């Protein structure tokens, strides 16, 4: 099934045979094993899985930001460039410029000691040679306006703790967008947020994608979020891809038993299910 969708050379993001392992007392454990991902330019890929599925480490592995103890194998191609073959300085030019990231907890992901403006400017300046402070500031304000932060020209001098949770996540997105990247990797971007705020952030991401043609990798545990935002879906379990395909196919005709169980377990807002079927219901209870 996956063979047909696998890697045509034209794919914008092409992750091949990605394996991430950590040393243990008895050798190594693979936290991500032999994972393939492809994403076309401007596309949206949802990576979905429960805790321990290795989905977050996948995003860090793509960016080359794994903790030092982790080992990575496989290849990550971005627009034909092999990220895994690049030196650290070369990678740095890609990070934050062509590929940007948004994380789960916006408060701890922003440095409390600097204004949000300074943190956006910093991202911009490190990828654009010879910009003046004033130019960088203009970019920061524009980026904040872009994500609909009201009164951006004034709030650019506020510190992260002066923003609400949703606004902080907007700041993170503004920071990511300031360099006009080609790809945004969003790792559980709405998990820490209230449901109404989540809806706003998801709308914002949709809007940005529509306007800029940004490609998106959305990593989440929430199947409903994936179904709303992604075009392609990869379902992960314990570091392996169990199923992949277009979002409609996955949600209307899942092939793998795990995907089916997972979908069965999702509580519905519009319907009460007689008994929620837990995943692996055939295998006894937890």
């Amino acid at each position, binding site marked *: 099934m996956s063979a047909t969708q696998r890697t045509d050379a034209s794919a914008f993001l092409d992750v091949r045979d990605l394996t991430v392992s*950590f040393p243990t007392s008895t050798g190594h454990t693979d*936290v991500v094993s032999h994972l393939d991902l492809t994403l076309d330019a401007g596309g949206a890929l949802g990576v979905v*899985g*429960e*805790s*321990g599925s*290795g*989905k*977050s*480490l996948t995003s860090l592995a793509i960016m080359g930001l794994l*903790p030092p103890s982790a080992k990575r194998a496989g290849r990550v191609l971005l627009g034909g460039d092999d990220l895994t073959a690049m030196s650290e300085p070369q990678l740095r030019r890609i990070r934050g410029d062509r590929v940007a990231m948004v994380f*789960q907890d916006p408060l701890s992901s922003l440095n409390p000691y600097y204004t949000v403006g300074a943190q956006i400017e910093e991202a911009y300046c490190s990828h654009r040679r010879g910009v003046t402070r004033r130019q960088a500031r203009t970019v920061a304000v524009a980026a904040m306006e872009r994500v609909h932060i009201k009164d951006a020209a004034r709030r650019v001098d506020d510190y992260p703790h002066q923003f609400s949770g949703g606004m902080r996540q907007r700041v993170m997105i503004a920071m990511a967008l300031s360099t006009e990247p080609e790809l945004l990797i969003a790792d*559980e971007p709405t*998990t820490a947020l209230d449901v109404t705020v989540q809806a706003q952030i998801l709308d914002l991401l949709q809007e940005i994608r529509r306007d800029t043609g940004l490609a998106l990798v959305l*990593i*989440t*545990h*929430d199947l409903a979020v994936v179904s709303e935002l992604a075009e392609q879906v990869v379902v992960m*379990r*314990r570091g392996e891809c169990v199923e992949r395909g277009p979002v409609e196919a996955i949600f209307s005709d899942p092939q793998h038993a795990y995907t089916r169980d997972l979908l069965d377990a999702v509580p519905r807002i519009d319907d009460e299910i007689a008994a929620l079927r*837990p*995943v*692996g219901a055939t*295998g*006894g*209870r*937890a």
Partner: protein
Amino acid sequence: MTIAPTELERERPPAGAGGAADLAAPPLQPSGGRVLRALRHDVGAVLSASYIGLVVLMAVLAPLIVTVSGWSPYEFDQSAIDPNLGGVPVGAWGGMGGTHWFGVEPGSGRDIFARIVYGARVSMTIALAATALTTVLGVTFGLLAGYFGGRVDQVISRVMDFLMAFPALIFMIAVLSALPAGNRSALLVVVISVFGWPYLARIVRGQTMSIARREFVEAAQASGASGAAVVFREILPNLRSTIIVMVTLAVPGYIGTEAGLSFLGVGVVPPEPSWGQMIASSVTWYSVVPTYFAIPGLFLFLLVLSFTVLGDRLRAVIDIGEAR
């Protein structure tokens, strides 16, 4: 029916990863056995524990040891010093030899080995007693302040701030110098503890506050547990590691303080020996008889070091993190 966790549930997210279900199980609480096993493979910890054991043994068996070595700590041996040279010990290395194992005190001819052995007694007794008193005070007030909060916490915290803002060493010296020389050891213990408990209490208070916020405390309250039951049954067991580590790290501080005060002449009163006091009396002789300060200096340094290393290793194993 065999009940096993589903495969999904059994796995754990690796550190840092994890989504909505950011539910990493807490690390298994270290049991006494596990801590001991971990420490047994640590050379530094083993050496430190051995040295501490040796000093303790020395302190406990002091009278016996002195019988074997042949000299009591208060006996003057005029034959071991040279009156013509102002009382410098006869022989090289401060008069070390078969008679006097560590040599003799210049001027008086008292046996240094015997004084070291008895000095261990004084140092350990004072340090351990001060530690015990500090622990009782620190844990009690820390728990009270941390659990009850509000006005109780206000009062206790103010007192702690006050005591910690005080120039403890100078004040201890002043008080001890003014007090009658009567029972100096007991006084030392009290004075050290009065200024020492806030440092433990502060940490116990902080931990109690964070534990009291945990839901299992609410669960106990929702089941009708009284304040005392919550403190002793639910909270105290979770403080055990912290207390053990803090206490281990406090002992060297108190040994140092006692020695320092004795060094300054406000601690243990002669002729009763203490290591700090021995070093103090060696100051006038150190260029002529270096062994006189080197021996008690080394014993003292090693004892403080051993407790520090042991406390450090304990903390690494138990990992309570916040204590500095």
